[in-house]
């Protein structure tokens, strides 16, 4: 359950058996070809895998680096989140659990969980801060369309952190029946490891695609955005054993790996933004998926090892990168994914990313959800 100094299982005693049950069942399932076949089948016939590796030809010419885009934006529901929730929902069914619970901030993980629940006929309860319920009425409605129950949380700041607390409380009280579906490579063991395994399909596919497309078989750089870090963890998993340089790109205002200190939150030890008293600080990013004060424990470990590098990008750089990709390739990326591109654009031609390099960028999701935000922020 550890990645170097990080990870672990910091949960109330009441939840230890529930976490252990998930860990045990995941271990069995992951070594069961039947389970893996079911998951691979769903990801293929339902979620649209494999996703393409798209050469960004015009952007590459402008930057003088070869940019390859791993297209998670083309999956069902529009982001890599589906890889993970399909895996966990199948696991929950295998465990005989009666329902799924999840927390959500902007609503993306909630929609993904509601989707998986609808597909498998598992009722879904999504905990969401009251303020987020108001701000994200579209996604609330979408979850309800999918048959999920959205539970508004009125405690504390009435946002994601409170929704997370409430979901955990609910899990404690209903640990026998409910399966807690975590949305990123965070949480108590086995979640960070398990979610990485469910997301490694991104990296494994990309590795094969690169081997088929690139003379060198492996790109020089592999770049992904990092909030909790699940799309990056899944991407890196395919390349950690190669010579590719790994780069995780955080939002300036939510840079746990870049600016955090060691601490414990949400069941795991990792790097968190916190004040001198040990209180967790709020993250600030226009990208809801990067708006998290910590980072998955494996990323903290990869940073310590020097195997991956973590950098930050501002909101403004991310917006500019999103617009640029739309203009050059006809692809509007999620503002989260645009962070990864923004670093590539900034670094191209410098010693960080020399001219002539080949760089794989994971487009974790599509930008349709961000059009309103971009409209408010951009003059066209």
């Amino acid at each position, binding site marked *: 359950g550890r990645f170097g100094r990080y990870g*672990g*299982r*910091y*949960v*109330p*005693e*009441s939840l*230890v*058996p*529930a976490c252990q049950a998930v860990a045990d069942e995941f271990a069995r399932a992951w070594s069961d070809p039947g389970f893996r076949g079911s998951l691979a089948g769903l990801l293929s016939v339902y979620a649209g895998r494999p996703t393409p590796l798209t050469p960004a030809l015009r952007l590459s010419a402008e930057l003088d680096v070869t940019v390859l885009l791993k297209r998670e934006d083309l999956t069902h529901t529009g982001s890599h989140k589906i890889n993970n929730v399909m895996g966990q929902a199948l696991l929950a069914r295998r465990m005989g659990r009666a329902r799924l619970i999840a927390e959500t901030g902007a609503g993306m993980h909630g929609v993904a969980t509601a989707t998986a629940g609808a597909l498998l006929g598992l009722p879904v309860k999504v905990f969401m801060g009251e303020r987020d319920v108001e701000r994200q009425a579209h996604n609330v409605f979408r979850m309800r369309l999918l048959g999920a129950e959205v539970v508004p949380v009125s*405690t*504390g700041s009435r946002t994601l*952190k409170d929704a*997370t*607390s409430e979901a*955990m*409380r609910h899990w*404690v*009280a*209903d*640990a026998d029946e409910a399966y807690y579906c975590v949305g990123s490579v965070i949480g108590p063991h086995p979640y960070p490891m398990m979610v990485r395994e469910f997301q490694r399909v991104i990296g494994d596919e990309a590795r094969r695609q690169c081997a088929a497309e690139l003379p060198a078989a492996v790109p020089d750089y592999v770049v992904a955005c990092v909030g909790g870090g699940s799309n990056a963890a899944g991407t890196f998993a395919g390349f950690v054993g190669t010579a590719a340089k790994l780069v995780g790109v955080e939002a300036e205002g939510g840079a746990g790996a870049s600016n955090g200190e060691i*601490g*414990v*939150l*949400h*069941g795991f*030890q990792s790097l*968190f933004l*916190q004040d001198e*008293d*040990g*209180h*967790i600080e709020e993250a600030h990013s226009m990208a809801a998926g990067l708006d998290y004060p910590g980072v998955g424990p494996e990323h903290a470990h990869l940073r310590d090892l020097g195997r991956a590098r973590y950098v930050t990008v501002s909101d403004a750089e991310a917006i500019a990168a999103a617009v640029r990709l739309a203009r050059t390739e006809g692809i509007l990326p999620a503002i989260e994914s645009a962070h990864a591109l923004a670093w590539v654009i900034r670094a191209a031609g410098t010693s960080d990313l020399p001219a002539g390099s080949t760089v794989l960028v994971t487009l974790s999701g599509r930008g349709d959800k961000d059009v309103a935000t971009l409209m408010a922020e951009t003059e066209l």
Partner: protein
Amino acid sequence: MPYITGGVRPDWTAYLTAFEDAGADMIEVGLPFSDPTVDGPTIQEASDTALARGATPAAVLADLAAIRVGIPLIASTYANIALRPGFAAALRAARISGLIVPDLPVDELAGLSVPGIEVSLLASPATPDDRLAEIGRRSQGFVYVISVMGTTGERDRLAPSAAALAARVRQATELPVLLGFGISTPEQAAEAAAVADGVIVGAAVMRRVLDGAGPAEAGAFVASLRAALSRPAGVG
């Protein structure tokens, strides 16, 4: 053992004296944390109130260092606070004798270094026997028995699981067994005391404090609980 969130009111240390006067055997002092994921709404509200007042673990411990209480003080807080360097020294300076960290289960105990402080572990109805044995072996001071699956908070009556678990814990340890979570009335306290060595009452006390009960009124509530404990030697 009554509970108070450190820093919840300007005069919060006055509650400690009142609880001592009401016959409490120990007092649990909560050090507020920004993300109290394990607590129920009442304690979370108390924690947020304290934080909004500018309470920090250091300030709460400094408040304690400045007063004298004749019964043991047990700190409770989250792992992120408990694992910080210098935490043990701060506890000792505040004359804290024990520590409860609800999100730090026995598996992660090795990472916690608080010399001179007794770390009490929790047992839950879901804990299997072999694990209970390890908890009994490694807990210090007492074992905190979670009477129900769920978070802190008031409930109508003592859960039936409580007695069974208390009995199982007794098999696993020589330490006193304290029952907590959801005890809010003298009747429940009496029920609990029949199967345990004492009870921990948190949310029921803090509900009253948040609703405006001063030290005297809160102390009277603690006294009513204490009186309901039939066994005079009970750790109330």
